[in-house]
């Protein structure tokens, strides 16, 4: 039989176009519209938010200031070996005079001094002093002698090692500082001296306090969420206002009320003394320390725990617990073995959310934390606006960001980004 093979007929649409093709095209059109709708916001967030974050990442390793201020010196230092025990030669010192004169005239050289001071104390003072005196210096015959006469530190090998080490376009010193480490003068890595170690302790304090706060919010939030989910809807709508009002109140308002409450001469101490539980000169110090931070932040973050818990608890049918009771379980067993496991998702969601928020907090610790209740974000702010060590601020910020991203991925696995609801 001829033509036993039957070709599968290609299905076409009314215009004769193959259906597969037409379907693909239609789907693509729809995807295009969808993408076009999202594009404006995507571009907007890209420019106003994502690129700035990226810029910050770059600043955490940027060391272009060395090349800008000391171009000739760095060129001359190219041949000099870090591990040599002799200071660089006369050409380098001539280059030093040249760059300093240019930098002092432009009044920009002290910035390099400040930057190098992060590596070794005294550099800032050295650069300032040299800049002031270099103006009067005639181009010297023996630059080495002249510079060492201005300040002995120019004759020390450590000074030159620091300059050589930090002469590249990029540097790891900011990240090393954030981890309380440093590059020693012999090139090895080591921890900083005891009295300069700050950040590991700060990171640990931030994590520790955030855990405490998360734990407290779970402890306080669980009963309320349970109550809200088990009363009549009408009552819960009324009661939830007591949770939503703090949620909607300005952060600063809530923090200032805690200042009023926790001060030594504040409301709580006044009540305790008035009732007789405390003597007047033994008032509790509940503010400007860790306690202040913990109490205020627990209060502020509690709604973030209650709302997710509430929405999870609402989905648990009450008949489950009744069924467990009917089969002989005590109320305690029914709770622990039937109810509690079903709320774990809510605890996880609320807990991670509260933790993420807590480790990034700035305002509340700044106002009520004193010096022992401040968190890593306060130090990032300090380096951005006061010490102006932007490299270090960026490095600390990047580490914090990575921490939060890791937690966020965890949150996504537990809850799912698409399921985030806001009350």
């Amino acid at each position, binding site marked *: 039989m001829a033509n036993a093979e039957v070709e599968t007929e290609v299905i076409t649409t009314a215009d004769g176009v193959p259906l597969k093709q037409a379907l693909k095209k239609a789907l693509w059109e729809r995807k295009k519209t969808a993408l076009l709708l999202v594009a404006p916001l995507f571009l907007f967030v890209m420019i106003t938010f994502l690129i700035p974050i990226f810029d910050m990442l770059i600043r955490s390793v940027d060391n272009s200031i060395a090349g800008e201020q000391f171009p000739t010196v760095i060129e001359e230092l190219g041949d000099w070996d870090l591990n040599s025990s002799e200071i660089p030669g006369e050409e380098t010192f001539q280059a030093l005079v040249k760059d300093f004169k240019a930098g002092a005239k432009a009044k920009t050289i002290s*910035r390099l001094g400040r930057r190098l001071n992060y590596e070794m104390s005294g550099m800032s003072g050295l650069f300032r002093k040299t800049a002031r005196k270099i103006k009067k210096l005639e181009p010297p015959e023996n630059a080495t002698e002249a510079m060492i006469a201005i300040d002995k530190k120019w004759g020390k090998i450590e000074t030159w090692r620091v300059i050589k080490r930090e002469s590249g376009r990029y540097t790891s010193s900011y990240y090393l500082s954030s981890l309380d480490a440093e590059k020693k003068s012999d090139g090895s890595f080591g921890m900083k001296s005891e009295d300069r170690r700050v950040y590991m302790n*700060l990171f640990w304090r931030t994590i520790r306090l955030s855990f405490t706060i998360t734990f407290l919010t779970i402890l306080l939030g669980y009963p309320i969420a349970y109550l809200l989910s088990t009363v009549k809807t009408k009552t819960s709508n009324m009661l939830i206002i007591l949770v939503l009002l703090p949620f909607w109140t300005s952060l600063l308002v809530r923090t200032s009320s805690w200042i009023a409450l926790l001060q030594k001469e504040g409301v709580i101490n006044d009540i305790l003394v008035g009732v007789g539980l405390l003597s007047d000169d033994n008032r509790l110090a509940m503010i400007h320390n860790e306690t202040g931070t913990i109490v205020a932040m627990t209060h502020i973050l509690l709604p973030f725990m209650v709302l997710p818990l509430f929405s999870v608890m609402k989905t648990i049918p009450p008949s489950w617990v009744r069924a467990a009771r009917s089969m002989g379980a005590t109320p305690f067993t029914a709770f622990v073995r039937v109810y509690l496991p079903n709320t774990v998702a809510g605890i996880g969601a609320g807990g991670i959310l509260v933790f993420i928020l807590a480790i990034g907090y700035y305002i509340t610790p700044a106002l009520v934390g004193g010096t022992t209740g401040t968190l890593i974000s306060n130090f990032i702010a*300090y380096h951005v606006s006061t*010490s102006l060590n932007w490299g270090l601020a960026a490095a600390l910020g990047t580490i914090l960001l990575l921490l939060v991203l890791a937690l966020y991925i965890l949150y996504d696995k537990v809850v799912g980004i698409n399921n985030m609801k806001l009350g």
Partner: protein
Amino acid sequence: MNKIFKQTLLAAVASTVVVAAQAETTMIIVSWGGAYTKSQQRAYHQPYMDANPGIIIVNDDSSSEGASKLRAQVEAGNVTWDLLDAEAPNAITLCDEGLVEEINFDEDLAPAPDGTSATEDFGKSLISDCFIPQIAYSTTLGYRSDIYDVAPTKMADVFDLKNFPGKRSLEKRPDPNLEWALIADGVDPKDVYKVLDTPEGVDRAFAKLDTIKDQVVWWTKGSQPMQLLADGEVAFGSAYNGRLFEAIEVNKQPIKMLWDGQALQLDGWVVPKGAPNKAEVMKYLRFATDTQRLADQAKYISYGPLRASSAPMVGKHADLGIDMAPHMPTAPENMAGAIFYDFEWWADNKDDLAERFESWLAKN
């Protein structure tokens, strides 16, 4: 819905246009806040605004972070401040970094009434090419008069927790705390900066501060220590002498002050480079730093004018009628035990020690 939207949009646009259309010049003058800013308002700003309608002077009280904020503004390329009230070491550093204008004193500032040039009139207080001196002030100690049975008599008492227990408040920066720590530890005031210039000296100062660290509440703005003393949150603490004067004499708080160990400092104006209203600012400066004006501010707060010609004009307090001369930090009876601030040394070492201080603060 569309109509309401359109109307709201129009109103919003209109209001922004109105804001932009105001033709007056606004100058932002940055100072230290509290009683000090008030004295400047009464002695300089208000008379100037009265004589020059169309000029509005706005006060921004950020001088305590003045140097870093100005640096940040310049690096950000957007200088919004017109004039900054800065203390001497900050003025020196800002001048070195090219962030503030150099001043031609005899041209830009008024001569004394008897014809003496500004340079001669200000004399030794011209510690930098960019710094226009205003006042001499000191950071000194105050204490609650109703808490201690035996009152403190010397600066070293603030380190004495046994005889003078209770919380104290100190300024949240290395100076003058490091100097005080060394002197309380036995260093001769004449040698303080020599000792502080060595790493061992700095360690010694921090070790002494460690002995009182957990009893200290740190302040950043000039009015904070007065609030802390008034509230009873602290019993003893450092403050600017003019603020102590305000609290004791004007507000009649139960506070007393010590002159022993007062750290004498200079304070004045610097003009940010790239300030929006430079021409107007120079006009204002000529007025605000003349002999009469500097003498006038002494009517409101106990800071010493730095012009030689203003000193004899210091009279009585404008509201209280009391003699101001004995309350000046430079009055002879207050000068025993005073520490003379080394501006150059602090200009060179400020950044380094500030970072060390922050690290020290952050340790538990």
